[in-house]
Each structure stands twice: as C-alpha cells, then as structure tokens.
C-alpha cells in the first residue's frame, strides 16, 4: 500500500490542469512546484548530509540568470577590453547550461566552504549568496541590474524532423514543472539509496566515526553540493522562463528561508517532506490573501515557522509515518533519548 502512495499522488497532480481552470490557482501551483524542486535540492544537503546552507538561493538565481542570458544573448566588455558577444541560443540549451553552471558553482562553493561547519558554514553560504546578489545588482551591462532581464523566451523543446513544442500556456508549464519535479525526485532517490547516500547519512549521524571507517567526508559532501546546486539551478531556469522576467530579487534571503521552512516542516531527510511542506507553505499566501495584507501574511509565516520548530521539530512526514506504522507502541524510545541528552 505504502509503495503506491507516490503513484497515486503523481496521478492526482497530473490531473490538476484537467479540472482546475482558475489561472490564479494554476499559477500558484506552478510557482509552488518550482519552489518544491528547489526545496528538494536543499533537502539533499540539509536533510541527508546535515549541512544547513542558507545561501541556497544563489544556485537558484544563478540557474535563472544563466538560462535567461543564454537564451537572450548578451554583449559585455570585461576588464582589459575583452569583448564577449553571445548570440541567442535555443531555450533548452539555456536550461541545460543553467543547470550545469549552477552545479559547477556548487562544486566550487562546496570545495571551499566545507572546511568549516555549523554556524560558520551557514554564514559562509549566506555571504556567498549576498555577494552574488550584489554582482547581479551592479553588473548592469550583463544583468540590467535593478531594471531586470525582460522578455525572456518561454521554454521550447525541438525534435529534429518532428517539429517543436513550446510552453506558452499555464497548462503546458504545469506539466513541464511536474516533469522536472518527477525527474529530480528520481535523481535524489537514486542518489540517497546508493552507496553515496549511505555515506552521506553516516557522516550526518556521526562525522568522526564516518571518517574513522574510511569515508572521504569532503568528497561526498561536495558531491551532494554538486547535485543539490544543479537541481536548484534547473528550478531557477524554469522560474526564469515561466515568469519571463527576473531581477536581483531572485537572490533574496527570504527565498532561502522559504525553501528551508518547506524542508523542515515537511520533514528533512525524507523524500516526500519537501513536497508536503512545499504545498503547505506554497499555498499559505493563497489562503491568506483574502483577509491579510502582505505584512500580515509574512508575520503569520514567521509565527508558523516558530511554532513548527517548537511543536514538530522532525516535520510532518515522519510524524505521519510513525502514526501509521506503530500505533500501538507503548514505549517511545525517542523522548527517552532526548532526556538523556538533556541531563547536564
């Protein structure tokens, strides 16, 4: 029964555009779907290796900007008078290159920042995202700065000899996002259930022990960072080609916070967690818009974040799983363990 849940969920989500015709709600589904893909990529780092990256939005934004610039073309003069001209390429190459560039940045950032842990890792990752945001804001020749990159073409897929598909309508974008979500889910699932995934979990549970049995910690962390950043970049590319306009605000810290809260509320280190948490936090603004101004919505958002950390620190999915799998267990080992840790 449990094995069927993902397929039932997929069938349910695939049917949404067939009965839902309200463009506002369909738009909410698409943007939420894109954020869920980003949250899933964050979960790979936060949930499976235990490293809290608060600069994740940088990879999302890098994917968005790269993809948009590849498909729009650019003409910049670098330091030393070297002029770089790029003619517009097909949009799907933008998606691929955006994903690859984000993954490459993930490699570089991972290689450098996994030297530090805990609070310092968090601060290095935020600093990276802020530097990238300031570059996007100030390198006007390339990014148009605060004026935003506009008229980004929608995604098109060409099939030689057959023709091509373009994604103008909301319905087609919905299926595009759903497809990317499913592919990302499978990639993450394969990774987590492989040798690599077991190594990552081992080093999350006890890093010194993992090192002592010969697991090359940095190598696996960097590998996780590459996949995580690449998937976030793919989500960013979808975002750019769906909205058709991006400005340096895609690097806003609040996007990272949104991804983090989606992962934490759903359950970090579970495959379904970011999807459940993402649907909840993606649709809070939709539910709240009728009675609350944006400030009140954000205040509710912040309060909910605090409450979830207080009440359900492990997240919704593990709580539900526990409830279904062992309803009659009389002894709950978890609080006992927690108590033992608390004693000074």
């Amino acid at each position, binding site marked *: 029964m449990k094995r069927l849940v993902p397929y039932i969920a997929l069938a349910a989500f695939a049917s949404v555009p067939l009965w839902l015709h309200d463009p506002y709600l369909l738009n909410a589904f698409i943007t939420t779907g894109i954020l869920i893909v980003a949250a899933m990529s964050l979960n790979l780092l936060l949930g499976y290796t235990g490293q*809290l990256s608060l600069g994740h939005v940088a990879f999302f934004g890098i994917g968005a900007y790269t993809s948009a610039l590849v498909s729009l073309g650019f003409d910049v003069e670098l330091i030393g008078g070297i002029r770089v001209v790029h003619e517009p390429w097909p949009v799907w190459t933008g998606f691929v290159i955006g994903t690859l560039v984000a993954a490459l940045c993930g490699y570089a950032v991972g290689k*450098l*920042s996994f*030297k*530090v842990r*805990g*609070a*310092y890792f*968090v*601060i*290095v990752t*935020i*600093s*990276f995202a*802020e*530097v990238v945001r*300031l*570059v996007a*804001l*100030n390198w006007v020749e390339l990014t148009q700065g605060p004026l935003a990159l506009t008229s980004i073409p929608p995604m098109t897929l060409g099939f030689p000899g057959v023709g091509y598909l373009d994604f103008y309508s909301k319905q087609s974008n919905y299926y595009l996002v759903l497809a990317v979500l499913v592919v990302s889910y499978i990639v993450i699932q394969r990774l987590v259930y492989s040798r690599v995934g077991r190594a990552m979990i081992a080093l999350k549970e006890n890093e010194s022990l993992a090192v002592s049995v010969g697991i090359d910690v940095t190598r696996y962390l960097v590998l996780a960072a590459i996949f995580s950043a690449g998937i976030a970049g793919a989500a960013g590319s979808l975002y750019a080609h769906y909205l058709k306009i991006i400005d340096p605000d895609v690097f806003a*810290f*609040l996007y990272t*916070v949104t991804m*983090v*809260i989606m992962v*934490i509320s759903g359950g970090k280190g579970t495959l379904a967690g970011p999807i459940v948490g993402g649907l909840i936090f993606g649709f809070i603004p939709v539910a709240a818009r009728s009675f609350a*101004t944006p*400030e*009140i919505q*954000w*205040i509710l*958002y*912040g*309060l909910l*974040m*605090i409450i979830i*950390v*207080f009440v359900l*620190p492990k997240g919704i999915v593990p709580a539900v799983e526990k409830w279904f799998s062992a309803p009659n267990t009389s002894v709950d080992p978890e609080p006992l363990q927690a108590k033992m*840790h*608390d004693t*000074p």
Partner: protein
Amino acid sequence: MTELLQHIVNTLILGSTYALLGIGLTLIFGIMRVVNFAHGELYSFGAYALYFVGVMLGLNFFLALIVAVVLGCFAGALIEVVLLRPMRGADIDTTMLVMIGAMIVMQNGEQFVWGGVAKSVSTPFPELPLVIGSISVSWLRLFVFCAALALIGVSYLLINRTKLGKAMRATFQDRDAASLMGVNIQFIYMATFAIGSSLAAAAGALLGPVYVISPQMGNLASLKAFAIVILGGLGSIGGATIGGFLLALAEELGAGYVSSGYRDAMGFLIIIVVLLFKPTGLFARAERIG
C-alpha cells in the same frame, strides 16, 4: 590625500557603531551559542524606539536615546524568555530557525506599524558641519562617535570589572562548572541577550538620525555583525571593536575607490576570506571572552 583623510574620519564614525553591533552579537553568540538572526531587527527596533519617544512623544533627544536603549534591553529579555528559554539544549540549527522566524515577524511587524516610508529624526545639533582644515564632520556624527565609544567602554567594564561580567565569563568558559559554583545560568543567558540587544538598539538609535529609519534597515545589520564577530574572533570584545573598525574601513575604501555598489559586498568577502584561511578570527589566541 584629503579624500583619504575624509574616508578615515567616516570610518571612525561608522566603525564605532559597527563595534557596538559586533560586541552585542559576540556576547550572544559566544555565551549562548545562538546564531541571532534577529540582531539586525533589534538594531532597527532601537531606531524606531528613538523615533517613537523622541519625535512622536516629543521627549528630549538625549533622553529618548537612553529610553531607546532601555527598551532594547527589555525587548531582548522578552525574546530570550519567550523564544530561547524553551529551546535550551536544542541544536544550533533549530534555534537559528526560531530566530529567523523572529526576524521575519519583527521586520514585518515594523512594516505594519510604521509603514514602508522611511522616517527621519531631527536632532538638536547645528546643521553646519565642523570643518578642520579640509575635512568636515557633522556635529551629529561626532556625537555618535563619542557616545558609541562611551558605550564600548561601559560594556568592557561590565564584562571585566563587575560580578555579573565575571559570571558571564565563567559561563562562556564552562557552563556546567559555572552552574556548580552557584551561577544562575538562566539569569546569565537572559542578561547576556538583554545586554547584547541593548547594544544593537543603541547602534540603531545612534545611526537612525544619521541616515533614515526604515523596516529594511536591519536586513544587512545582522550579517555585518557576524562579519565583525568572525573578524574579531568569537567572544572577544576587543576583537569585535577592532573588527567593527576594520569592516567600516573596508566598506569606506571599497565604496570610495572600487564602486559604491559593492560597499556591502566588502563585509561578505571578508567573511569568506577570513573563515577559509583563518577560521578562529584575526585576533583570537584561543576562545575566550573579555
């Protein structure tokens, strides 16, 4: 040359308030191990408190400053008791998320109460700047510098010369041993957070009249404070003071000679470089406080 001198004068004034922010955070992070994302919001809280008391209630500017600092102290104590006390023993990521939630609530609360339009505060200082040779400094900025230096001195004395400071230092070194010696750890945590918050509020109240007061002013303040703490080494008041001035110098020179758009990038570049090459900070011999 004149330009450089002017940059150095600006550095001293900006650096003194950065030092206040940094000292507040280094105490909180050092003693409580809480990554306080709400630090920047206490900074803007101080500025709005000054606006409320000084402009809306019409109190004397200097009295309003003192009231703003005291209100910051109470706000910090309240946050500690409501949000952090129940989280004692939780790991650092969990408390960090709670503080991010607090940051979102406080910033949007300010937006809701005060609106998005920036506020300005008028001061009793003369409009004409003080001109020495080719350098000009406004009287207000000079006052900000002196007040910030005085507060740095007070916090140094508080940590190194009082019984409370001694208990704080003991808690920093070994929480359990301090607790066994009869130090009330719960009270020390509350006092630490309150003192750190009041220093952030003081920095906001001092800089508020120099610039303008807006709900977004705290956005970068938390991260800059972290840059200062990392530069100076965890738990070191002297380090945080020097770190504050160094960050201000990097920003002034970066804005003056590279590009004003990259002023705020300096702090982040410093964080990245220092953490990657000297993670203990520039001045820390070992982790200590004082």
